[in-house]
């Protein structure tokens, strides 16, 4: 029997939408993006042109740093032959009919590193269609055939005649849109693949003018904070809000489903009011276990067979017959996303009419349907205005629309008498759950007498992210694909393989964290390969190379990274190298880490990264995402863990959950594989590779593989 599953998220929400799980599609909201500001002309839902030639691209994905605004604008501008200096981008409103993620079966949202990949044809067609209409309008204006007019840098050119796009925009948009347009051959690209394009949001993010949800101020707006249960699953038993209400500036203290909200005339009063609250919590349904207890339970489960996620050949027989068996057990902690901008939202509720929301909505369709259900309004009456967001890394895409629903609950408790700005503090964020869950992996691998890999057995234990959410139907035969992705589809050639899964129930909400399952499967598989290579007496690069002969794209990045890192020549004195390669979200990344160890202190000095993401739309942004993904993943493996004692979170701030700081940041160089393949994503795939690359360098230095993350748990700092 052969059964290998992998989580392709293009099928993910497609299934969800098709099964009708409350992801309403097909409703219509009058979108801000289709309402042209004065004098700007809308060509389609994705593009407006102003009389002065300014181009506005309406971006259906949230911009939270990954460069969606720049990338999608590039696609339109390329086919439009736009002048890049005139191109701006704005976020689309919540409207799945116009702005669905084409990989998500009708739902609007951002995730799975899919923004460029799903928009590649759609946004280029939007630009090409508008260009054809501009050409036709110019032809009528000039009285010449459209075929004699060429376009360049926002100009329509016929002989000595130059027309700016803005001059004919209004006439052009009134023409019927062509039913079919041809797209440029890649050889004619001027913007796609061009490294010198700067981000469309670069200037506003250096002078304080970029607007995030926290920056909005509406007339009469009040500020809210919420006291949440310190244990997950706890509920308000009773509360005394009198001291809070006595804080000058506090306007209301109200109970909502997620806790007790303090509403005030400014943020400071809301914070002081919350400090003065006295809440008694009911922990009857709360998770009260410690994380160490959970790990202990998971380690026991790892000794027992689980649900089979992938199987090939006879793994037990192959292990029994192997010349050598290598065994390692791994422990991965809870991880918080900790985006720089904590969760926040501005809401204006007009009872019986509408809810307007302004926030970093990563999944507007879920937010709209959830808020509609709460208020009894139609999804079309829930207006989601997506703001720039200060990072997410997965945190803003919650199946229960947590921040939208909490803000709306407060507004409802006040009968909509004022707009509300809800802000979570950093403590709320660190202690707020929706973590990358704890996982335990137990791996056994067999080598024959000549050092060939003959068996691979991997047992994964960890809570399901999807269970109990609208996506639970994506758990197939007891397998949450997001728990096993990156392992059940192991790239290495091995004749006998079995991957099993236990999904114990834990009362702490879990969530996708930049690269999801790959954050642990990538680490476990890639460090285990190094342990096998060592047992086989093989070089870790050569060992991989031999096992990836049927995987040309893995092999391509592996060899490129090794070559650019000088793998075949000795490392500098005192420096140890580690290598890793992993596919996630259809992109392939290999990294070589150069690490210095000084009394157990891990200093990553240099990382050479190779990435194959198909055609690179904005190569400098591809590099930026690799740099950032490496930094994000490195901080986590070095020292980050959320732990619980009797159900209470031990960490609360950036001192005990300390992000990567500048002196931890290695020099990163990124090499992009030249490719004609369709573009894939880069937001996540850089992250799961750095941990194992660094761990393998530590293994090379010490002979001991770090298996209990973060490294501080393994005696390293």
């Amino acid at each position, binding site marked *: 029997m052969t059964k290998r599953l992998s989580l392709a998220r293009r099928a993910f929400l497609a299934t969800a939408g098709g099964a009708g799980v409350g992801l309403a599609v097909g409703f219509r909201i009058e979108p801000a993006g289709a309402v042209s500001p004065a004098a700007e002309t809308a060509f389609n839902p994705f593009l407006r042109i102003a009389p002065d030639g300014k181009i506005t691209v309406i971006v259906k994905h949230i911009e939270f740093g990954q460069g969606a605004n720049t990338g999608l604008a590039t696609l339109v501008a390329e086919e439009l032959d736009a002048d890049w200096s005139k191109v701006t981008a704005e976020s689309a409103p919540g409207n799945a009919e116009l702005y669905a993620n084409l990989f998500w079966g009708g739902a609007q949202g951002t995730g799975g590193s899919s923004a460029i990949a799903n928009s590649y044809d759609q946004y280029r067609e939007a630009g090409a269609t508008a260009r054809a209409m501009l050409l036709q309008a110019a032809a009528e204006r000039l009285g010449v055939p459209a075929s004699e007019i060429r376009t360049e840098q926002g100009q329509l050119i016929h002989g000595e005649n130059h027309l700016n796009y803005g001059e004919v925009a209004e006439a052009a948009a009134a023409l019927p849109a062509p039913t079919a347009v041809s797209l440029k051959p890649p050889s004619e690209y001027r913007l796609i693949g061009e490294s010198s394009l700067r981000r469309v949001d670069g200037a506003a993010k250096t*002078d304080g003018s970029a607007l995030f949800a926290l920056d909005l101020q509406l007339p009469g707006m009040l500020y809210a904070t919420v006291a949440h249960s310190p244990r997950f699953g706890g509920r308000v038993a009773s509360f005394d809000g009198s001291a809070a209400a006595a804080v000058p500036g506090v306007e209301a203290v109200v109970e909502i489903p997620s806790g007790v909200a303090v509403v005030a005339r400014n943020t*400071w009063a809301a914070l002081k009011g919350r400090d003065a609250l006295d809440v008694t919590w009911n922990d009857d349904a709360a998770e009260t276990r410690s994380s160490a207890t959970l790990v202990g339970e998971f380690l026991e489960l790892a000794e027992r067979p689980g649900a089979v996620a992938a199987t090939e050949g006879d793994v037990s027989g192959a292990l029994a017959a192997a010349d050598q068996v290598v065994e390692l057990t791994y422990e991965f902690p809870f991880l918080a996303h900790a985006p720089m*901008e904590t969760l926040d939202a501005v809401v204006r509720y007009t009872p019986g009419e509408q809810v307007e929301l302004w926030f970093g909505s990563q999944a507007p369709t879920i937010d709209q349907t959830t808020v509609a259900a709460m208020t009894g309004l139609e999804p079309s009456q829930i207006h989601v205005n997506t703001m720039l*967001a*200060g990072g997410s890394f997965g945190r803003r895409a919650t199946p229960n629309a947590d921040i939208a629903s909490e803000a709306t609950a407060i507004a409802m408790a006040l009968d909509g008498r004022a707009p509300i700005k809800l802000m979570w503090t950093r403590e709320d964020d660190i202690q707020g759950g929706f973590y990358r869950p704890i996982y335990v992996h137990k791996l056994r691998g067999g080598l024959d007498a000549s050092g060939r890999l003959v068996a691979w057995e991997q047992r994964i234990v960890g809570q399901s992210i999807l269970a109990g959410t609208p996506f639970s139907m994506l758990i197939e035969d007891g397998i949450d694909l997001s728990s096993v992705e990156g392992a059940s589809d192991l790239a290495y050639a091995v004749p006998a393989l079995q991957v099993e899964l236990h999904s114990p129930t834990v009362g702490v909400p879990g969530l996708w964290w930049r690269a999801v399952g790959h954050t642990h499967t990538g680490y476990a598989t890639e460090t285990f390969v190094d342990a096998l290579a060592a047992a086989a007496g093989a070089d870790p690069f050569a060992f991989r190379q031999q096992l990836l002969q049927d995987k040309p794209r893995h092999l391509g990045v592996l060899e490129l990274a090794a070559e650019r890192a000088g793998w075949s020549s000795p490392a500098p004195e005192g420096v140890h190298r580690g290598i890793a390669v992993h596919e996630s979200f259809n992109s392939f990344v290999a990294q070589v880490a150069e690490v210095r160890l000084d009394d157990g202190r891990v200093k990553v000095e240099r990382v050479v990264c190779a990435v194959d993401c198909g055609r690179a739309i904005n190569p400098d942004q591809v590099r*930026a995402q690799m740099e950032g993904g490496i930094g994000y993943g*490195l901080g986590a493996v070095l020292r980050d863990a959320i732990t619980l004692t009797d159900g209470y979170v031990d960490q609360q701030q950036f001192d005990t959950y300390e992000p*990567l700081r500048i*002196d931890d940041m290695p020099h990163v160089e990124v090499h992009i594989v030249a490719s004609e393949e369709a573009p894939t994503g880069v937001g996540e795939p850089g992250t799961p590779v750095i941990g194992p690359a660094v761990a393998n360098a530590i293994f090379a230095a010490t002979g001991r593989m770090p298996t209990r993350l973060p490294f501080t748990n393994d005696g390293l700092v």
Partner: protein
Amino acid sequence: MATTLQINGETRTLEAADDTPLLWALRDEVGLTGTKYGCGVALCGACTVQVDGVALRSCQMALGDLEGASVVTIEGLASPEGRALQQAWRELDVVQCGYCQSGQIMQAADLLAQTPKPSDDDIDAAMWGNVCRCATYQRIRAGIHRAAELLEA
């Protein structure tokens, strides 16, 4: 309950509780929202502003202690160092989500004012307290070096 101070060169009298952190006074009362909240306890640097010429964490400065002080925020940053940093940031596309970058630039302007040609170690020491969860640190270093070059030219 009223504090008079200079904000970006303008004299302002703010009617807010004396214990209001400058961060919230700037954001909620003055409407200068370029200064960001990241942690509220001086562990991340997102709220960095200049007070009397020195880069400080505005979440830790009580409004009542700032009578007569001169505050510069990202919106008012007009020093040669500030301008050079903004230009360098744009040239090198330092930003990703951008949320921490006001604080990064305010801190870096302070560094360049004191150390016109900083080494990587100088930069790491000066910028250590400024967190970027997008980990744009490599470009922050490069941006500061580039700004130093621009200032020298």
